[in-house]
């Protein structure tokens, strides 16, 4: 029978787990698989791509009540065919971890603690600091070999993006940085 695992799960959901399993000769796994089916019944499904290396393995995520309840390798993905390595398969922890930071934080100069601040406050202050650094450290012209050149930049602002960002985020960051005169634009391509 030519059936991949993802379709198998779907079919299993429709026709009754026991029947589908028996059909496929998976009797020994019956209990394990039906527990899983039970857990996933009524869950919404979406796909994502792993975030730990450039293989780009596919993942299937299951959601119930806005909570990620299951994550596994996408069996229909041409790269990983359902497998995930130690890091990829551990990723269901990320949206459910208590260690995640829920709000913006601020640490004042010389302070020894963080304090919570609102998004609006954080972004307003960051925008002002950005402007200040830009305006006070603007290089309009530069002389090289006796010749004057217009350079329109600031060397006092650095932006470091990440390979953790999606393409659209990288693109917007590059566009914003250049529009604001930033030449110290970097990321972790070297790690």
């Amino acid at each position, binding site marked *: 029978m030519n059936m991949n695992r993802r379709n198998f799960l779907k079919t299993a959901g429709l026709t009754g787990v026991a029947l589908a399993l028996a059909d496929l000769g998976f009797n020994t796994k019956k209990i394990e698989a039906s527990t899983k089916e039970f857990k996933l019944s009524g869950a919404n499904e*979406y796909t*994502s*791509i792993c*975030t*730990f290396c*450039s293989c780009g393995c*596919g993942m299937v*995520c299951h959601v119930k009540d806005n909570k*990620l309840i299951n994550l596994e390798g996408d069996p229909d*993905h*041409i*790269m990983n065919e359902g497998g995930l390595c130690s*890091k990829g398969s551990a*990723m269901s922890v990320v949206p459910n*971890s208590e*260690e*995640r*930071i*829920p709000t913006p*934080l*601020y*640490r004042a100069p*010389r302070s020894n603690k963080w304090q919570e601040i609102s998004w609006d406050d*954080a972004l307003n*202050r960051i*925008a002002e*600091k950005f402007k200040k*650094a830009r305006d006070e*450290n603007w290089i*309009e012209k530069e002389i090289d070999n006796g010749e004057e*050149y217009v350079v*329109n930049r600031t060397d006092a*602002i*650095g932006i*470091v*993006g*990440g*390979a*953790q*960002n*999606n*393409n*659209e*985020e*990288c*693109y*917007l*960051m*590059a566009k*914003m940085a*250049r*529009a604001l*005169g930033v*030449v110290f*634009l*970097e*990321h*972790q*391509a*070297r790690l």
Partner: protein
Amino acid sequence: MSMKWVMRAKEKGAKVIHVDPRYTRTSKISDKYVQIRPGTDIAFLNAIVQYILENDLYDKTFIISHTNAMYKTNKNFEFNEGVFSGYSDEERKYNTDFWAYELDAEGKPVKADSLDDPQTVFSGLKDFYKRYTMEVSSGITGIPVETIKEVADMVVNNRPGTIMYALGMTQHTVGVQNIRAFGVLQLLLGNIGRPGTGINALRGEPNVQGSTDFALLFNYLPGYLSYPNHNKPKLENWTASYGSFRAKFLIHLLKAWFGDEATAENDFCYGLLPKKNANENYSIYRIFETAMEKKMKFLYIMGQNPMVSSPNLSVVHEGLSGLDTLVVADLFMTETASFWEKPGCDPSTIDTEVFFLPAASFLEKEGSLSNSSRMVQWRYTGIDPVGEAKSDLDMIDLLFNKIRDLYKDSSEAKDEIIKKLSWNYPTEKKAEAVLREINGYNLKTGELLNGIGEIQADGSTAGGNWLYAGVYAGNENLSKRKDNKTDPSGLGLFPGFAWSWPGNMRVLYNRASCDVNGVPYDDEKKLIWWDEQTKKWMGYDVPDVPVATDGPDTPNGQKPFRMNGEGVGRLIANSYSDPDYVNQTARDASSVPADGPLPEFYEPVESPTSNVLHPKVQINPCLKYPRIESKQPIGTKEEFPYVLCTSSISEHWCAGTVTRNVPWLNELVKETYIEIPEKLATKLNVKNGEKVKVRSARGEIEVKTMVTHRLQTLNINNEEVTVVWMPYNWGFKGLSTAASTNLLTIDAGDPNTWIQETKACLVDVQKV
């Protein structure tokens, strides 16, 4: 997961060779394991190349048709005492014009009649490589002569063959030349462009391909367009240097950024772009160094944790302490955001103010990313971000709008660019809107572009990255495609699964899988071919040719490496600009490595031995290090006798910001340790699990030891050399904390890429 495919190839009879300083799980499944001293790959690879050249084992047809083997190099080209012609001692720099071809009256390279003509690239190659005998190579690398010969025979007798590499090759002061050494080897063997061949970077980060494509790099604009320098004030100056072929893509980009404001009359707003100083390096190391000097005031970091992952961490810490404002957007608290809390450091002495912005994880946002094979894939989401977290896309959009608002009343010249920039993104489906901008539009029809071929140089098209033109072809987001069934090639191309740049091409240089007549070398496993009937290049893959209807009897039909001006693979990286007869400028000026046209072996900056090939030129002659003497001491082998190689591990990712917050990964590997050979353990009188102090010229840390057989002492130029190894994924935050290995590592960088030499520095190890 790449290993899955290596195993599958092995099941079908492929031979697997694994080269690594340390015996690992990969070595275990290999047919041949080669233990090498870190930093000596060129000496190893060059001996294989020399063996191939000496015994005529190269693919003669391939090199004559698809490489510059027959081209004549100019008469002044030389290599002497460790340096090539064109070297300036004072500037530690080459004038790459010295590596040019001999040109005819039209500016095209002159070809010889035979490979053996003394002026050919091929003859130059033979001349250069003859110093790399098996014995010399063995002395440098520590690999026995028989092993080098065995590997050479294996690669010659098992064609087609592919090379997979990662940071082990690039984190050196000769990183680019390491890869060039692969390039020469694979071109000689005809191992490029055909199924089962190539040089494959297994990039260690999820979207490192995309983040370089979109140029979060100081020296590029999106699509690898060279970033404008101060001495190129006008578009025509830029075009003169980088060619009219690329200028078209720059105009296309400027139209996407400046919309109607960009016109042919105003140079498409090119003049508004900030210009970097051509003589300065703006890499991440310079960010921390200039911050240390109090010249950097504001730093914004998203999704990166340099307080763990960057080399020579004390410079990073001092740099962060020198800033006015630091902004960090991440999922978990990082060592970078809380650098002021580092154990042993007094927060009341640190003036930097810090903002931490909670970011949505990859599972909580939509967007695309590009894997190592340039395949662009879409990520969906089905859950809300944790707490008040936001995607970086939303953060950038909000922040830019706020900054633009602050400038709304300004009439200063410097703020003109902010006002002219087109920036207007919807709240819903923002990522898709940005991807459409990246794909590009035809401004006359308003339609999305279907491919690179539709891009115009007159400003009538606008798009954010020429390489991605076509990802939204036919008004459909092709990165979402999931057809895992259709593969007419039988080779695993799956053209209907997601989308690859450029133009959904899966195998770059696939023109080289056919002979001069456009007939596939291997009819059973073919990618593309010239179809005489329809007068077109056809294929299971998108043909990598300049024009699909220009056949093998035209110059365009013989350009398997079309991104080079001359269109063929470069055995020697000769500098060359293809003349453009229409515009009177260069059509295509492809770059050459800054540190030499051929891979020459140089010792790492910190080395346990001297360079036997040219003792006076011990290290890469283009390297400028230390940049700041007080912070970048160089250790000697007398004080630091062991070679330290570092890397990440499969259980933790990079700085460990995420993985060290996952309990079961911490159970798998919970802390930093040092792996040492038994012989050293006996000498130091330490047992497995006992603590040692590891010290370099830059710092010291205490860690547990792991005593193994997997590392063995090596015989290097008749002296015994010991290599030790450490993972670098830890810091003082997260659920699992431990000492940071990068306090020890060196921040000397490759002169082309500024990648640090974290694979080879010197340390001392003592029992605590």
